[in-house]
């Protein structure tokens, strides 16, 4: 079963490479813009630190690391999932979802990773470069353990990011049009650029609002920087799995209510 899906994924990768190479100029331009956004992000942090020497209780190096790490999780999402989620509402609207449902593959798999966007690959490289630059800056020795925990955090962040979107995307089945999902992604990416630290007790609403940000990026990085302690790892794991399973059940629930465009 896993082998079958792995083979399928490989085939999808091959198809997508062929597709992307058809539009080479576009590919190069989006590569350049994705590089630009990271640089812009670092420039903003640099700018803020011209006015202060700590932001949300984080110093400059830590925020750089935050940017680099979040960039890694997000780029995994951007490369493999984003385009599929954006197209989902359109697929429902036009009745194209029928074609996916009738295929002998898990529909969630196909709706998540069918179309890729390799122009975001430089993000992965830049994200990694930023991380190692910061390690160098902070004097962290780069061992196998560091790389391993880095990977673990990136994957946790990716799963969290994916799950949060999966909580929203199936809404398209219940509504006539939900093209704003792509904009919602911008909102989210915007919020995620900065850490939400110390969950303060006095403002519950703000905390609920910021919880997704905390799960995707802040908590993993706090764990990595040993800002939290062991309890934080537990909290993060529980939160991510709760959201992941909630999202999958919502997806299944929504699919049951899908009536195709013609029937």
């Amino acid at each position, binding site marked *: 079963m896993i082998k079958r899906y792995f083979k399928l994924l490989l085939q999808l990768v091959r198809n997508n490479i062929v597709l992307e190479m058809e*539009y080479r*100029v*576009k590919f190069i*331009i*989006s590569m350049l*813009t994705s590089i*630009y*956004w990271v640089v*812009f992000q670092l420039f*903003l942090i640099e*700018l*803020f630190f011209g*006015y*202060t*020497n*700590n*932001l*949300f*209780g984080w110093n400059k190096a830590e925020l750089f690391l935050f940017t680099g790490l979040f960039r890694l999780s997000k780029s995994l999402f951007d490369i493999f999932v984003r385009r599929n989620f954006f197209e989902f509402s359109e697929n429902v609207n036009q009745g194209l979802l029928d074609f996916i449902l009738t295929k002998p593959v898990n529909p969630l798999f196909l709706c998540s990773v069918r179309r890729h966007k390799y122009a975001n690959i430089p993000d992965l490289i830049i994200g990694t470069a930023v991380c190692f630059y910061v390690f160098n800056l902070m004097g962290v020795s780069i061992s196998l353990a560091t790389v391993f925990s880095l990977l673990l955090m990136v994957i946790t962040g990716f799963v969290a990011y994916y799950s949060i979107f999966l909580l929203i995307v199936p809404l398209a089945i219940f*509504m*006539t*049009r*939900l*093209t*704003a*999902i792509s*904009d*919602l992604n*911008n*909102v989210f990416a*915007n*919020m995620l*650029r*900065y850490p939400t630290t110390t969950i303060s007790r006095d403002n519950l609403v703000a905390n609920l609002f910021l919880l997704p940000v905390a799960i995707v990026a802040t908590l993993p990085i706090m764990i990595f920087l040993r800002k939290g302690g062991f309890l934080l790892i537990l909290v993060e794991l529980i939160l991510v799995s709760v959201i992941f399973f909630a999202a999958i059940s919502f997806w299944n629930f929504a699919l049951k209510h899908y009536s195709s465009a013609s029937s």
Partner: protein
Amino acid sequence: MRKFFMMVRLAVIEIMAYRVDTFLYLASGIISPVIMLTIWLTIDSSGGRLPMEKTILVNYFLILMVVEIANSAWSSQFVSADIRYGRLSKYLIKPFSYFMQYGGQNIGEKVLKFIYLLPLVFIMGIIFQARPVEEFSVTTLLLFITSWILSALLMFLVDFIMGLASFWLQDSNSLSELHDVLYFIFSGRIVPIVALPSVAQQISFILPFRYMLSFPVEIITGKMTVVEISSGLSMQILWLTVTVILYYFVWTKGLKRYSAVGA
């Protein structure tokens, strides 16, 4: 003019069918200024300094939010699609101009956005403890409104011209990506122009992006001198003239090219 109001009315009716979508788009427009404001206020409370007084900063981002949503233009992607798929022909035989079609639509969609927006801004005002603009006079108000209208026109025209570029380019998407890149830094959307490094500030005075968004906001919030206001306004008028000429040029040249392809 009656035709134009008809366009607006049609757009209002259409947008009313997609209320949730509109709300989500609006939310994404609001979130960025709110985050930037929060960051600056955090800098202030953690002992850093601000590029301008706190009350001015709060007003700046709140007014910016309103101006940006009022000015926002998104026609280029539709214009580009119309040209590439040949749908433009359909509009050419209608008894109103193509430009008017999208202009009316733009204004119509904002009617609903503003119904949502005004209470939201009011709530934000309370949350961020906004205080009325100091040294407020009728002259500044008039200058603000004039400059606001100019900026909205400029924003719409620039966007529209980018769409028209599809007469020549296969894919005007990369053009708008390039535009976004520059717009983010030089429009004052993320960081007020005064907070930028001086080189970037000088560049922003020349490029059109500041005159598309932050200049009217600067007029009403900042204590600008007469020279600053008048030179800014002249730059605004200059850029508007340039874009109007460019629009006519691109439209007539492009249309000739288009009919050559279609017929």
